[in-house]
């Protein structure tokens, strides 16, 4: 079966925008959800909803089963050793902040370093800046080359025993560059640093095995992998999580509370204070099932072909410059066009039903590196096809015609 057949599973794709069939090329910002996800959430709300871990009644039992069932699906999806290593969060951002505040902040001292890269999303920059400000630690940034690839030698040079944590994206959201994360982690293991991988842009496009990677933490968002917004995951190695104090206090994260002493709950509940996003987790579980049924390898193979086609076609447009031409890429192509600001391009494409993202993509340092205020970015998911690319190209040609002098 060709991948394009999956298009029918996504109701949002079947609509007109400004009188044109929607061409959705903004999945790196947020992916559309298939009916199975939408229905799973609705079905849960309709039939099974109650609070989790709190009641002896039937609905509470069903809600707990659904919620913990989703956790088990996520565990299997990234091949974590235990489901207690899967912490549900609001998204990647919250997962990273949890590690910053609960893992790093208590151990960080002045003179320590946090190592990141020039490719990071603001979510993998600002949480570290916050703890640096509080502790006097230093944020160190590994450089990239003109293709938008990490300079590995330089990154390895920056690794030493002062580095408490390496926080690195698996796939760049602005450029699509895939970092050779396995090699990087192996190198980092020569020192005594913890390793966090921001996998927000990786999980929708490739299979991820956290045990094979041997990272300490892996963070991702549900809404970029066809699940609901407000869902996300922090994977953490059991021993690391066990040693960390809770981040937020409240219900569910405790075993026993008195005014003098509180006993924290076991993992993963210690990090899940308050009533969680139960229906969201159920939807995320359905998204995991959806991806698993298709097969991450099949998705990656299909998208790689489509990405090559996209980049080739874009390159045929006069005055268009591809930004981000790494040898190993996933799903994303950024570009700029002479004389047309990305924001104008975005409006002109939207007018023709084509949705792309324009601007800095929450990666201002990447924009600064390429000396552009922003880029236009087309990003692919398994439901896109060559027809989408062709429509994008035709719409860009209209923009260049409109702006031609």
């Amino acid at each position, binding site marked *: 079966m060709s991948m394009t057949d999956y298009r029918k599973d996504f109701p949002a794709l079947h609509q007109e925008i400004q009188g044109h069939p929607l061409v959705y090329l903004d999945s790196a910002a947020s992916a559309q959800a298939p009916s199975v996800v939408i229905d799973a959430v609705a079905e849960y709300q309709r039939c099974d909803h109650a609070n989790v871990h709190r009641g002896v009644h039937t609905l509470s039992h069903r809600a707990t089963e659904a919620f913990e069932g989703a956790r088990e699906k996520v565990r299997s999806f990234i091949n974590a050793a235990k489901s207690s290593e899967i912490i549900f969060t609001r998204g990647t951002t919250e997962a990273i902040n949890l590690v910053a505040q609960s893992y790093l902040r208590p151990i960080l001292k002045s003179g320590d370093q946090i190592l990141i890269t020039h490719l990071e999303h603001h979510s993998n920059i600002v949480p570290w800046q916050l703890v640096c400000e509080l502790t006097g630690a230093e944020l160190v940034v590994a450089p990239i080359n003109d293709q938008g690839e990490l300079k590995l030698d330089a990154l390895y040079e920056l690794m030493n025993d002062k580095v408490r944590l390496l926080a690195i994206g698996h796939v760049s959201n602005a450029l699509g560059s895939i970092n050779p994360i396995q090699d990087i982690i192996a190198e980092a293991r020569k020192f005594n640093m913890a390793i966090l991988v921001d996998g927000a842009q990786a999980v929708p496009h490739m299979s991820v095995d956290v045990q094979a990677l041997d990272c300490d933490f892996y963070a991702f968002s549900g809404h970029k992998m066809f699940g609901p917004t407000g869902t996300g995951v922090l994977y953490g190695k059991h021993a690391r999580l066990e040693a960390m104090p809770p981040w937020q206090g409240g219900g569910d994260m405790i075993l026993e509370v008195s005014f003098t002493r509180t006993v924290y709950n076991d993992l993963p509940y210690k990090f899940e204070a308050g009533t969680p996003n139960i229906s969201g987790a159920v939807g995320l579980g359905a998204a995991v099932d959806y991806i698993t049924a298709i097969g991450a390898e099949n998705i990656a193979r299909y998208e790689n072909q489509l990405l090559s086609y996209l980049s080739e076609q874009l390159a045929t447009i006069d005055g268009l410059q591809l930004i981000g031409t790494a040898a190993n890429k996933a799903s994303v192509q950024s570009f700029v066009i002479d004389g047309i600001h990305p*924001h104008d391009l975005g409006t002109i494409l939207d007018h023709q039903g084509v949705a792309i993202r324009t601007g800095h993509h929450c990666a201002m340092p990447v924009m600064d590196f390429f000396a552009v205020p922003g880029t236009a970015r087309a990003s692919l998911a398994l439901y896109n096809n060559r027809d989408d690319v062709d429509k994008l190209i035709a719409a860009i040609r209209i923009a260049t015609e*409109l*702006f031609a002098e």
Partner: protein
Amino acid sequence: MSDANLDIENLRELYRELILDHARNPRNFERMADATHSAEGINPLCGDKLKLYFRINAANIIDDAKFEGSGCAISTASASMLTEFVHGMDMNTALQYFELLQQRLTAPDSPVEHAPLDLGKLRAFEGVREYPSRIKCATLAWHALRSAVQCDDHPASTE
């Protein structure tokens, strides 16, 4: 008319020739060394960043206006046209034009407050109405004008 031509025609309502002309060849596009007032305008959504300079005399007349920075066609054209538009104008009148422009773009049916004023060339921006996310672009320079004359050090933002 083919679909493509129709699209171009519709888009020309937004990207009128006057706007494209100012975007391609911005007027008064330079620093002003002897500015009495200046302010930055930042639109975080699209990364537009403009700096406007004004020389305002003792009688509150804007003697000169210039700008620099980078932005989309709409915000660049708007800044360029602003510098021409307010040249020689009383500062308070300029602020009234800002209010009028804002109103014409966001609530065109409400009664006109500054009735005797005429937007003139600034009418070119009326096509922006159909594109709510772009109204900020069309008014960014005007926001900066307001913060410049109010001596507000903080960059003007459309947020």
